[in-house]
């Protein structure tokens, strides 16, 4: 008897153990850096290793990198400590650390944070990000950056972060399928055929007739619509406004699923979705941004895919994946932060090197235009096509204005909630209700959900 009760007791307790938490709030006022003296440890929070690799490779002050890769020692003895948490847990861990930011020793404070577009607003609005002018970076230093990427992180007229890379999106298509369906694989002609959604649908029907799929699944075109919304998901911390653009995505995806224009993969980055990009795939194309084409697609397509892909702008400009480096409030390393930020987002020569070596689309209009005009900067994978030229046409037209603090949750929940609707398991109203339930669970403060008429 006792065993049973203690078993039960422990079970309840285990669930309970997760629930302990306490917190601190954030202020709306712009935070400041601790300028009194330069600390000995720079703590950098990242969701992936890119920034670390760039600093280790291009920062001239680097003395050595520790064996486990967690620390980089600079020539003046300062240590850069890399704290890397994957996207899944990044915010949870960061929030825990930020709560202690005001109380821990200077060398334990977070100094630099890498924030993705889906949640950069959350931290800007919480007063975590120090204005660049406070650490000595002037507007003149930032003059070559893409203005739209600067605008997002501007609070009260002050720029509070730097994007090291820009991620304009393109439509990557298979040349062999394009030839079969449209009779040409020339990027200009394909673009002409896919210039708007109506034309895109027509090509989808033609592709289906030939036994191909136009897109892989439900989430493929999502970002092309969500980046073109008229307003943010949430603007008053209370009401979720579903934009007509999102309804268009739902309508289109339902149509594509019912008509057999897509391969019914439930989300991007699933096993089935990546397989659709391999040699056996029968999908016409994928909406992808810079990193997606240079790294993900190249990897998924494999050797057989070399030369069989090309890119065009597609029906609408979009981006996928943007991130900003920010200086955290109370940081005690303003001088080093200034150097690192300038190196990765202002220094023309270094940025050119980064762009050429790593194929990153760096945040420098001059550098990228130069590469775009260079006839030698084609990519073998794309059959020699100069994709940078197209990317740099799209980059200035990206609209970051509707980024809000709730983007990540809204994106995840709308894609998942409507999956069953696309498959025909539930009705449109049931799917709407499923989204409402999910979003209210995720953000308890969002109580009203408004659907467009």
């Amino acid at each position: 008897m006792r065993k049973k009760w203690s078993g039960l007791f422990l079970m309840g307790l285990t669930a309970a153990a997760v629930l302990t938490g306490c917190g601190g709030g954030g202020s709306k006022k712009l935070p400041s850096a601790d300028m009194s003296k330069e600390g000995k440890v720079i703590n950098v929070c990242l969701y992936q290793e890119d920034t670390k690799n760039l600093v280790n490779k291009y920062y001239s002050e680097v003395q050595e990198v520790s064996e486990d890769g967690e620390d980089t020692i600079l020539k003046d003895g300062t240590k850069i400590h890399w704290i890397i948490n994957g996207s899944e847990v990044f915010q949870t861990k960061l929030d825990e650390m930020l709560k202690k930011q005001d109380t821990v020793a200077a060398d334990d404070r977070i100094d630099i944070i890498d924030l993705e577009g889906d949640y950069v607003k959350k931290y800007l609005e919480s007063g975590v990000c120090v204005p660049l002018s406070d650490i000595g970076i002037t507007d003149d230093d930032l003059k070559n950056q893409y203005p739209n990427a600067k605008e997002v992180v501007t609070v009260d007229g002050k720029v509070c972060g730097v994007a090291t890379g820009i991620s304009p999106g393109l439509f990557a298509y298979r040349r062999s399928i394009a030839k079969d369906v449209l009779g040409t694989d020339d990027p200009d002609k394909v673009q002409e055929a896919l210039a708007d959604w109506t034309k895109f649908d027509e090509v989808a029907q033609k592709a289906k007739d030939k036994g191909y799929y136009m897109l892989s699944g439900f989430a493929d075109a999502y970002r092309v619509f969500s980046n073109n919304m008229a307003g943010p998901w949430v603007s008053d911390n209370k009401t979720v406004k579903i934009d007509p653009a999102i309804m268009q995505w739902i309508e289109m995806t339902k149509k594509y699923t019912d008509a057999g224009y897509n391969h019914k993969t439930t989300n991007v980055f699933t096993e089935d979705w990546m397989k659709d990009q391999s040699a056996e795939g029968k999908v016409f194309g994928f909406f992808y941004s810079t990193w997606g084409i240079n790294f993900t697609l190249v990897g998924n397509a494999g050797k057989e895919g070399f030369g069989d892909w090309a890119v065009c702008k597609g029906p609408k400009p979009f981006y996928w994946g943007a991130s900003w480096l920010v200086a955290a409030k109370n940081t005690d390393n303003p001088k080093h932060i200034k150097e690192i930020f300038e190196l990765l987002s202002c220094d023309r020569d270094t940025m050119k090197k980064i762009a050429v070596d790593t194929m990153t689309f760096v945040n420098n209009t001059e550098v990228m235009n130069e590469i775009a005009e260079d006839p030698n900067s084609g990519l073998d994978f794309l059959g020699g096509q100069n994709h940078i030229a197209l990317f740099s046409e799209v980059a200035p037209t990206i609209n970051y204005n509707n980024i809000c603090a709730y983007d990540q949750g809204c994106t995840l929940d709308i894609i998942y909630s409507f999956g069953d609707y696309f498959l025909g398991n539930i009705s449109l109203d049931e799917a709407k209700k499923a989204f409402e339930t999910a979003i209210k669970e995720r953000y308890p403060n969002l109580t009203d959900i408004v659907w467009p008429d």
Partner: protein
Amino acid sequence: MTKKRKEKKKKQRYYRKWGYIFTLPFFIGFFVFFFVPLASTVFYSFYEYYMVGLMEVGPNYVGFDNYISLLQTELPKYALNTLILWLGGFVPQIIISLLLASWFTDARLVVHGAKFFRVIIYMPGMIMASAWAMMFFTLFSNAGPINSLLMTLGVVKKPVAFMSSVLGTRILICFMMFLINLGNSTILLIATIMELDLDMYESARIDGCSHGQAFRKVVVPLLSPVLSYIVITSMVSGIQMFDLPQILTDGQGSPNRTSMTLIMYLNRHLLGNNYGLAGALSVYIFIVSAILCFFIYRILNKKEE
């Protein structure tokens, strides 16, 4: 004499003290890591208390509001899902376990390589549940090996979307549960049967009972303490079911939340850092599991009396 006795008593007391001292670390750990969080869970279940980003709301006392608002959600559906998934795994598990135990312990039915098979049966339980879920997710995906196999064999023409159908997803989860737990209960039953005094079983066989009859009428009743142990532990882990459906459905309980268990629902609220509502849900789960356990314990122990 009396003095001696007193001394002896003193010594006894002295020894007794050590018992408490040695168990103290457990109780300190229990208090700090279990009792305090439990108490705070119950405490916060009466408060509106959540975090959105770095913004903290509450704690504001709201009485039973959290409990009431949970009843207006699809909570009963998730409870039913949990029950279905548990039964779907447990019923075949206990039947097959008994069957295997009966075969392995039947003196007249000599199973060759019994030890080998026992190890094989136990092996699935040694793999992490999360690894199972990942493996099944890949195996049964639309472009996965199972679909390729079925198509190559000509069983189906188009890939079967196992995880898009309610039945498919539930069967996959139940099957994994079955595989993971089968070994444990089989070994436990075999060990218990081998410990039993089987005179009655032998005499029943001599009187003309078949093995099956003797097993059902003689051995199974003798096994009831172990069976009740298996039912209770399985039920407790059934109510806690989380990792298999969570990973298989990417936390969504898809399709349309028909494989969302109670703890997965709890996890949804933890995702929203909603300590108040999650606390209330935990208290519900606690009460329900206590009641269920009480009944099953009563039913299983009645026979013995």
